[in-house]
């Protein structure tokens, strides 16, 4: 397992939005998607995920409904609302810009 990276403030929201971009997931699925797609580098701080999901639902970025999972359990599925999708697009652009800027600075320091 690669050493885990601390999540920057506000990053979790972006990752959750990203996790739900492909379709509805329940909370456990979201946490595993983040862990796996980051190559085990990112793990969510304990106790942070569900408050984040609920807060985003309250803001209207996510909608939820209870359904029976493929493992025949009652699970709460979250999906992006239109507002959430717009948020995702905005945050993604922001992140790309941020990464590019930091990259340029690193290159400059090297040169």
């Amino acid at each position, binding site marked *: 397992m690669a050493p885990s990276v601390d999540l920057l403030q506000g990053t979790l929201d972006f990752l959750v939005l990203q996790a739900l971009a492909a379709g509805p997931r*329940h*909370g*456990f699925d979201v*946490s*595993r998607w983040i862990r796996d797609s980051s190559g085990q580098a990112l793990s969510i701080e*304990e*106790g*942070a995920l*569900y*408050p984040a999901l*609920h*807060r985003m*639902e*309250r803001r209207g970025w996510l*909608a939820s*409904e*209870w359904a029976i*999972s493929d*493992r025949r*359990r*009652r*699970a*709460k599925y979250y999906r992006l609302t239109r507002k959430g999708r717009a948020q995702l697009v905005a945050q993604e652009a922001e992140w790309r810009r941020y990464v590019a800027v930091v990259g340029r600075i690193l290159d400059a320091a090297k040169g």
Partner: protein
Amino acid sequence: MDSRRGKLFRLTGRRDVERDLADELDHHLALAEEEALVAGADPAEARGAAERELGDRGRLLEEMRTIAAASRRAKRRTERMGRWLLEIRRAGRSIRRDRWFALAAFSMVAVAVAANLGMFSVLNAAFWRALPYPEAGRIVSVRETYEGRPLAVAGANFRDWHREATGFAALAAHTSWSGTLVRADRADQVGVAIVTRDFAAVMGVAPVVGRWFAEEETRENGAPATVISDRLWRSRFGMAADLLGSTIEVDGYHLTVVGVMPAALQYPSGAELWIPAELFGDSESRTAHNWKVVGRLTEGVDAETATRSLSDLTVRITSSEPATEYLANGALVRSLRSELLGQSPGVLLLLQAAVALLLLIAVLNLTALQLARASKRRGETVMLTALGAGRMDLVRRSVAEALVLAAVGTGLGVAAWLGVRSRVVPVLSEALPFVGTLPLDLRVVGFLASLIALVCLIAGLVPAWWAARTAQRDGVAARGRAVGPGLTMRSLMSVEVAATYVLLAGAALLGKSLGRMLDQPLGFELDNRVVVAVDLPSQPGSPFRDRDRNAAFFGQLAEQAAALPSVRRVAFGTAAPLLGRSPDGRARIAGTPSESNVDGVNADFRVASPGFFSVLGIPLLAGREFEATDRAESPYVAVVNESFVRRFLPGDEPLGQRIRFGGMDWADDDRWATVVGVVGDVRQRGPGDDPVPAVYYNYAQRPQPGRTAQLIVEHSGPAPAVLDDLRGLLGREAPMVPFLGEPLADGLESAVAGPRLRTAVLAGFAIAALVLAAVGLFGVVGFAVAQRTRELGLRIALGATAGGVVRAAIGPSLVAVVLGLVMGVGASAGLGRLASGLLFEVSPLDAAALAAAALLLGGAALVACLGPVRRALAIDPSRALREE
């Protein structure tokens, strides 16, 4: 699909939320544990790893509960808003269906709102809006006082104040007169203000064109200069740019125009040009009260502090003078606003109270109408309640309707006010010149909002309260047989009748007071007399400065006027009633203590030509009038009035008494005069004025250069033609004098203009109230009859007489009206004392006025009942009984 599920979720309670939170966490735990087991951990270890991943369960649940509660609150808020919007839309539809009701409700609210808005705008301008000067709150008016009684300020005292007073950033004295502006063969009357140099600093105003007075223009015999008003610049000089530096002639003075003041400067009232007071010099007297004083307080100093320190200073500077009631021993500093308002606050508050009553009446009417509507759809209400609608739902429905009615009515009222505002402003600015254009500022808008809120509260909550109460009590079964809102409606009507009565009684009292005033014996004849004020130039060098030339001019003018067609008789004098001025002074009577003491006796000083009393119809009570034989060089003669005799010569034979009356002319003329006649009293300033002791002198013996005299003409033809002839005559004889002539009756009109205006306004409000009350009664009685059709039908079927039917139909309503009248009379008696200051020789408890108001209101109530009574009598019993 989604939305339906959302609705179901909303119905689930807080317990389900709790379960959902736990389930969600448990689901995560289960999956994490499973994952660990698959990875090969032993069961205990797997459970532990899963729990660690989620963290402290208690804290987590708490955090999520908080979020859930917040989102529940937000959801409820939007739902509530949504429900209100729905109700408002529903109310709009329901009101639109009820055309006549809507029309009545809208117009009632509109009338009340327009009146209240207008009145409040005036109040706002009079009491709260800043005067149009920078930091206007610091501008004050300053007076001298003697034993607390305010006096105009003596020049010498002002100069000491100006030099030594603390607490003032600037102090200025001013006085005004009406002058004559001559330019290009045209003479106009203009308002002239004589002001000291710091006047502009006090007002905080600088000329928009040119400059204020410079050093050499503000000393005695300096360069004569003037600053003119924006209005004069526009109207008389066509905004000519080259006016600056040119010379204009005012009252014979040649003044260089150095500046134009902004239009905002409207002080002293009526001033069209300002001239430096310093040019003229002033006496050293501390008892010649010639000046008004304005000041600008230093930042942080209030009027009380300034009053105290200025009083101390005044005592110090006057302590060396012999004390008389003319020598100040104090000072009074108060805001310029209170000076400008004068006596008007009482009238304004009275009228504001009147419109508040009008609003009350409109609201009660609206409430009664809404009750009637609520009663008509009681079936619907009962059904809703049975289906679980709560009290809040009923309130929402009712208040939403009231809101729609109030909002539309208010909109119409605002439109109506804005429509008449431009016509109100000129009338108002006669009385309160500083009120401006009455804009809808923040305070007025706030007032409007609270009006709407008040209407909603009363007209919304009362019917809702009634509907909720009856719906609970009656239940579905009692539908149709339950008690109507009659009692509630009748109580409202009683209050409404009482309020209307108070307004009517007030208007009746003011009307009677005005009538009394107009019936007042004036002591002189009014009809077929015109008066022409003649203000001859009197500056140094003018020929009319000479006493004999002045007297000769008027003697000749009177002769020529008498020769004009349709002129009967002509006289002149300085104190024509209503239009002339009648200064008071100290007279002395030979052989009485007043001959030698300091104060003499206080009397008015008037100068009249031969024929003055007979032309004006002032009765001669003893002795003779002035004659042409009283020549300048013969011994002085005087005529005194009835009050003078009663007051100062009781029991003595007035004829032959000798009187001395000095200090009243330019060249002090203090000779003894013999009383040769006694004439009747006149009400000099108008019908509200009490006669005062007066001494008349013969103009030929005591001419008055420097003072305006009036030509009094008794005529037989129409006044305008006579005035035209007089204008022609004066234009030939004295082209430098502006023509100021008017029928004497017009003078009476302006003397009673104030009382007439407030009576007319209050009467207008009272009539509006009467109409509203009648409409309300018509609605309430009509509703009562409609509601009791079945009962009345039964009575008719059982052989009730017409009288019995009428009694049953309108009896209770009439009882409410009588009750209201009784309350109204009580309230009027209580409130009347407040208005007694505005009443002239009428008691606030005047029986005739109060009875007239009661009769008018009772009559209107009966008329309002006529329609419903006709309907009650026309009920067909067979149909009425079949219907329900």
